[in-house]
């Protein structure tokens, strides 16, 4: 695999114009995928050849029509001549019609194979992305993955028709055409074909240059998009600082660059296209001249000359499009390589062979000497590598564990290890004595539900969002879990109730509402282990307390872990651990930790100063 193509590099891979073995290997692999659709490929290949053959017969018929008309000039009307004309006309009609039919057929078949490959790739890609573990998704830009799934699949799809099929067509037309032209008259044939190497070469060169300039232009357009997008979404900042002139200048500068690149592209395209046409006309003029001389000295008929000219007209198009064909291959090998890089990845976290379903009894979650570090560069919001060192704890059904600590101390990491979003480096995580790595992921993730910090809303109704983990749930269950999460009243007040669309195009929910929806989602699953990963930060204290009580009233079979910054969220826990730099530095009940007078007590004092921490019984206290 190419280092430059690695998915871990955030910048676009540099464009390579040359061909190397891995490109050919990628193309071979695409061809193998195409050949899986045996019938389609066979029909496409057969029909493309037949279409080419019919196309090649047309100049011949035209020539013979001219000859038979000329040969009988002045001979007056007669049945033989008429018969010959009718016959040629019928042949012309038949050849044209058949060429059209077979062209349609091979275009359709080629496209159908391409579309089926796209379908296969798309399904495989989607399935693979769903399997690949969190570690993979952490290390890759989502935009990059989306681009691969959209544009790269397109790049592979189009190669069937624009690459493979067109190559066959060009080879047959050029091969057979050259054979026919050269056989009749070598000199004239050579002159007629003289534009082919020039036009083909220009076409390829132009295409490759256009490609390079296209990539440069894309980059600039990307910058332009960003400038406009940031301006529009940050419009308040722009106006707050009266920075419109500055923003317009930014826009102007990038626009100027894109215009220069666009002009360069126009020049490359136009100059080459025009040169190709001119080369064609020069060859045509020469054919006319040499052929004309031959006609004059009687060594060639006007019909044959017509035939040569008609042949040239037929060859012109595919030769001019040679560059597109080369481009299709170049694009497909690049796109294919990027797709296969993802498809060939094995998920780091998967069921062990023969893994059994998790058996739940008391729902005892236990960390035994767990150490963990994120491998690979953690991007974005986690600047510091989060690690855990020898973390030990236990929580069981009916009990609550609270985890607190500064940002980056590893709190969320603990939440991620229980449902095995990541695997521990050493030590083990068990549920009722079963190592999480020994049970099936499906059963494990059913038993453990993590309410995430950021709630991802799917563009769908609220009902569908709440029932995301269990789309078969009864409406009563959905209502119930929404009530537990204290979201029901809000939903019921909406005009469309549970049918209200949320997500990108729907109504926007506040941070607190999103978090409550996320809680409802998890409640509906009835998990035995419930982990709140700082998921009530945007919910006010009173509502949070109500949710907590509703959860407690619902079942006692559940082990609960609460990770929070706000001590009010977890001070009621049976045990609280204070995490710092991945180690447990304090542990005990709220009262014990206060009595200890350590970091926890410090934090409590800090938050009380801010007037934010309710007293232990959950009722707010007034400090002034």
């Amino acid at each position, binding site marked *: 695999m190419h280092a430059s193509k690695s998915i871990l590099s955030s910048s676009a891979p540099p464009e390579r114009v040359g061909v190397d073995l891995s490109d050919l290997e990628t193309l071979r692999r695409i061809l193998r995928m195409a050949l899986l659709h045996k019938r389609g490929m066979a029909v496409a290949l057969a029909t493309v050849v037949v279409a080419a053959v019919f196309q090649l017969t047309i100049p011949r018929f035209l020539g013979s029509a001219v000859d038979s008309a000329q040969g009988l000039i002045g001979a007056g009307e007669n049945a033989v001549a008429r018969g010959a004309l009718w016959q040629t006309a019928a042949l012309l009609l038949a050849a044209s019609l058949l060429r059209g039919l077979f062209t349609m057929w091979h275009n359709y078949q080629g496209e159908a194979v391409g579309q*089926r490959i796209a379908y296969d790739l798309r399904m495989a890609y989607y399935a693979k992305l769903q399997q690949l573990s969190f570690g993979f998704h952490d290390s890759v830009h989502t935009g990059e993955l989306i681009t691969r799934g959209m544009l790269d699949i397109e790049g592979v799809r189009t190669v069937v028709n624009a690459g493979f099929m067109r190559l066959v067509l060009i080879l047959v037309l050029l091969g057979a055409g050259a054979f026919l032209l050269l056989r009749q008259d070598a000199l004239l044939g050579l002159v007629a074909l003289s534009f082919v190497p020039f036009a083909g070469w220009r076409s390829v060169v132009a295409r490759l240059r256009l490609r390079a300039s296209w990539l440069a232009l894309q980059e600039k357009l990307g910058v332009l998009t960003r400038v406009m997008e940031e301006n529009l979404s940050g419009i308040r900042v722009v106006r707050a*600082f009266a920075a419109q002139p500055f923003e317009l200048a930014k826009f102007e500068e990038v626009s100027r660059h894109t215009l220069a690149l666009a002009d360069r592209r126009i020049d490359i395209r136009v100059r080459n296209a025009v040169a190709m046409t001119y080369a064609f006309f020069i060859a045509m003029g020469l054919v006319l001249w040499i052929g004309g001389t031959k006609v004059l000295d009687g060594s060639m008929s006007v019909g044959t000359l017509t035939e040569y000219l008609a042949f040239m007209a037929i060859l012109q198009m595919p030769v001019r499009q040679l560059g597109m064909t080369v481009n299709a291959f170049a694009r497909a090998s690049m796109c294919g390589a990027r797709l296969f890089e993802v498809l060939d990845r094995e998920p780091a976290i998967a069921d062990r062979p023969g893994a059994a379903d998790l058996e739940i009894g008391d729902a005892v979650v236990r960390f035994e000497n767990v150490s963990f570090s994120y491998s690979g560069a953690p991007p974005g919001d986690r600047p510091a590598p989060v690690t855990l060192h020898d973390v030990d704890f236990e929580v069981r059904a009916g009990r609550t564990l609270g985890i607190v600590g500064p940002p980056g101390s590893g709190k969320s990491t603990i939440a991620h290890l229980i449902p095995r979003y990541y695997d521990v480096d050493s030590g083990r995580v068990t549920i009722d004595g079963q190592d999480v790595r020994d049970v099936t992921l499906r059963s494990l993730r059913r038993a453990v539900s993590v309410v995430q910090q950021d709630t991802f809303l799917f563009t769908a109704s609220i009902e569908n969002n709440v029932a995301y983990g269990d789309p*078969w749930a009864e409406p009563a269950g959905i209502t119930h879990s929404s009530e537990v999460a204290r979201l029901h009243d809000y939903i019921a007040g909406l005009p469309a109730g549970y049918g209200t669309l949320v997500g990108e195009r729907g109504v926007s929910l506040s941070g*607190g509402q999103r978090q409550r929806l996320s809680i409802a989602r998890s409640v509906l699953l009835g998990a035995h282990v419930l982990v709140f990963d700082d998921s009530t930060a945007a919910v006010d204290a009173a509502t949070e307390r109500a949710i907590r009580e509703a959860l407690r009233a619902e079942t006692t079979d559940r082990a609960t872990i609460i990770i929070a910054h706000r001590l009010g969220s977890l001070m009621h826990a049976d045990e609280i651990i204070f995490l710092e730099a991945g180690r447990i530095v304090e542990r005990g009940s709220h009262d014990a930790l206060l009595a200890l007078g350590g970091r926890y007590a410090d934090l409590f004092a800090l938050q009380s100063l801010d007037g934010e921490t309710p007293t232990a019984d959950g009722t707010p206290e007034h400090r002034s």
Partner: protein
Amino acid sequence: MSAVRVIDDPSVRRGATRPPRAVVGSQVDTEETIFASLDGRILRRFWLFVAPYRRRLVWALAAVLAFTASQIAIPLVLRLVVDNALVAGAAIDDVSIPAERLLLVGIAAFFAVASLNFVANLVQETLVSRIAERLLIDMRRAMFAHLQRVSLAFMDKTETGRLMSRLQGDVHALQEFLETSVFAIGDFVLLVGIAVVLLVLDWRLGLLTLSVMPILVAVRIVWLPRARKAFLRARVTSSTLNGALAEGIHGVRTVQGMGREDVNLALFEEKAADNLDAQLQGTWLAQIMVPIVDGLTGAAMGIVVVAGGTAVLGGRIELGVMVAFLFYVQRFFDPIRSLTMQYSVMQRAMASGQRIFEVLDVPISVQDRADALDPAEIDGSVAFEDVTFGYLAGQPVLQNVSFRAEPGQTVALVGPTGSGKSSTMALAHRFYDVWDGRVLVGGLDVRDLTQASLGRHIAMVLQDPFLFTGTIAENIRYARTDASDAQVIDAARAVGADAFIRALPDGYATLLEQQGGNLSQGQRQLISFARALVADARILILDEATASIDSYTERSIQRALARLLEGRTALVIAHRLATIRHADRIVVLQQGRIIEDGSHAQLMRRGGLYARLYRMNYASFDDIDV
């Protein structure tokens, strides 16, 4: 011991029914259904953008016509060569001018026409593309510049993505329209030219040959609406499918966490299959035209061969005419094809034009007066006098609001969501104009000041510390691009951001990717503080939302805030009790009216809404239902 409830084992559940309530991806994109008919007003406004390039456009048109003429001329030259030189030379040997010379004349004519074709082609393609490219940028610039000045209310209710699609997709549609329109003129001339030439060469044969043309036109008229429907469906299913893919990638952690993989894969497969079907149907409809056009071309050639051949036999026309006809026939379906395509381009362009001009027509709500002032210094007071304001007629969001912040004072605005706090802030900066009453900054009505001077005297720190892609230093000096490095570093140090910035790989030159995605929320907020500090304005407007910030970061932010407020007048939308308590004045808003106003101690004594909220100890005054 009970086995874990495995709810959605697909082997059990699938087959019987698909999940009753499950979807992947969003539904149809409404922006996509877009065809409009020719609209004179749009064309006229479009022309205003084209007008600056009039002169070049005239040249381009001349080149298009020259190019078309050369295309029509080439078969005529062939005819000349065949009739005057070849046939005549072969048949009759005497003639005054030798056949060789006639041939040479013909060849010379051919090269002359080919050269004209070359030059005209070069000029038309270059000019038209370049004009269209400039047009695109002009329209985009016009929209972008306009959006800098339109009412914020418009920006708030319009999704960025929607505007971006106008700035990108819609301008392309008009660019394409200009390009194809110019070439369409060429196509039309070509079509008419070929028809005329055919009729002049031999009107009987010409008429016979042209008789296939109406058939093609009729076929395309029947075909076009069906094809367009199929193409539209292919596009829509594609974008739906890609939407589902994007959602699957964005939400992959939730998908895996909730074990939705199998359900989603099955739903995705339905969409993929639907798309495959639509694509194949679209391909089929596109390809069906190929044999029809080829068949009609064959028929036309057959007509030329039989009728033309007979005429040649009878000596009524010359052989060269027949050759010319045969070459014309092969060309004459091209313009029809591109002309019918032009129709779709035009419809798309009209729809895009409508959307573009819609943006350009959004009224500019706030404009500088001709005699607006730009004072170098102001005293820093802010006063609202009986201000009434709203976004929709008849629905005021602020009513008779009056308060005053003396220079150097901190005034906290408190109230539930929708009480009008943000609107109040926006008015102080004259993002909108009041309906009634007035807003005074430094004792002057904001409508008498230039917007640029307001921007200089008032700095804003928003709840979302929006950062731009670029280096940290560039972001800090956003408000004052001429600020020195020392000023930037001083500001960062003052708000306590210097330490973490220096710890970054490239220090102040570190590139912020994706609007600061590589920093934590707290760090971004500190940079936005530094940005406001560099602006060095007398008045500070602060939307202090720190709900999502942890206590540790909160502590450093509070310190930075204290530094920022030093010696400045501040209007603060306060969420945190700490900030509120330290404010000189607290203004409590409810449903657009001031219901309480005073210091913390005064308000607590009064025992009104503020005291009640304070006692209930909400994390944020925003999240309550009052």
